């Protein structure tokens, strides 16, 4: 992928370190950042996103060994500590409401999911949205969906027994169920092309705000750290459990707006697939992991709450922009429109 333009001191320092090996002095850079602002900080979230991208593929102009450069890892960890603290603050109340209560863990995870009232982007797009807004939604989602389920595959070697088997079964489906043309990331790339968007990984990064990047960054933070395995599974479960119904509406929106069939096809696939996946994740993966101990249960509920609350914040930013008649994307550096 191509490194995007820096958007502040954190990305400027990180990108210089990645490309030229310039020493990273992160302690000064981080003093201005604390609390809630971390969750939507455009500079910090882009820096984290690029740190994680190093684990997945080559970045133009960056030596591959920088993936394990100790300065880069220390920089990432410093950002992660602030991000993780902000996520705990964000999720504390919801976790307290639902973890360690009476009743089945799977039931409580579904109840938690249904209790977090996010703005419904899919409802808006289903009834009122225009083509520009649906394309913007695809652009935001490209931060994750071009590598759909890749972070979650990192949980597999850390599980054992029935939970491992259930996750493997789910991931097999995400990764095409034996048919390369059905890889969900490929279906998403085809939807992007059909909608006239650049389908290269990271190709639209410079347009994506911190609130959007935070969703993928939370996934990677959780999935890369073994100590956060329960949170990574709770996150994946909540992600899948908020996909089926919205996907049905987004497929309908794509048809109403006469977009090429690949766009509706992507969402259609997720209606039936995620109605299965949400059950597998909450009941066959999260529940046995939560049963392994009180900290694991707290972690599962934390991951689920963090997913839903980050999605709600990011979604609200899109709806607010659209309600004001504005674009939900950051301005293009060169006045290019989103269309390719």
């Amino acid at each position, binding site marked *: 992928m191509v490194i995007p333009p820096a958007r502040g001191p954190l990305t400027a320092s990180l990108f210089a370190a990645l490309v030229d090996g310039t020493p990273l002095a992160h302690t000064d850079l981080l003093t201005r950042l604390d609390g809630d602002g971390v969750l939507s900080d455009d500079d910090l979230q882009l820096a984290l996103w690029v740190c994680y991208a190093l684990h997945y593929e080559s970045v133009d102009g960056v030596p591959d060994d920088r993936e394990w450069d100790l300065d880069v890892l220390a920089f990432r960890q410093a950002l992660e500590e602030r991000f993780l603290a902000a996520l705990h603050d964000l999720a504390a109340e919801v976790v307290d409401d639902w973890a360690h*209560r009476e009743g*089945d863990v799977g039931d409580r995870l579904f109840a938690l999911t*249904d209790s977090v009232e996010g703005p419904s982007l899919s409802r808006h797009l289903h009834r009122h949205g225009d083509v520009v807004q649906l394309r913007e939604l695809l652009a935001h989602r490209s931060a994750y969906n071009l590598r759909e389920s890749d972070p979650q595959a990192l949980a597999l070697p850390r599980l054992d027994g029935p939970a491992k088997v259930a996750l493997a079964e789910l991931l*097999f*489906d995400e990764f095409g169920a034996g048919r390369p043309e059905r890889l969900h990331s490929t279906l998403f790339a085809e939807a992007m092309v059909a909608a006239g968007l650049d389908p290269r990984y990271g190709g639209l990064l410079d347009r994506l705000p911190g609130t959007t990047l935070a969703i993928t960054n939370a996934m990677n933070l959780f999935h890369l750290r073994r100590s956060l395995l329960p949170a990574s599974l709770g996150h994946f479960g909540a992600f899948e459990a908020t996909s089926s119904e919205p996907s049905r509406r987004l497929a309908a929106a794509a048809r109403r707006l006469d977009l090429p069939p690949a766009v509706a096809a992507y969402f259609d696939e997720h*209606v*039936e697939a995620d*109605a*299965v996946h*949400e059950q597998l994740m909450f009941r066959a993966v999260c529940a046995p992991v939560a049963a392994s101990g009180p900290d694991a249960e707290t972690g599962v509920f934390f991951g689920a709450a963090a997913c839903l609350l980050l999605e709600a914040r990011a979604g609200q930013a899109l709806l607010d922009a659209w309600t004001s008649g504005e674009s939900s994307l950051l301005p293009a550096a060169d006045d290019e429109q989103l269309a390719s």
Partner: protein
Amino acid sequence: MTARVSATPCPGGPLLLRGVEEVETADGTVHSVDRPVVALCRCERSQRLPWCDGTHRALARGARRTAGDVAPA
């Protein structure tokens, strides 16, 4: 692939079917299956019958709202 077929009911949700090749509905329509696990709708309100599309959760949310019981006990 094994020929073993299994069915797992999800509380308040669909019936998960593993290892099936097709599902025939009451009207005689045969729905072919092309994924390892499918969720069969049990609330009969899905818009993708015979498959689950998550509608049971929307119904349950509506029922909870009517009962004024949204917050956990």
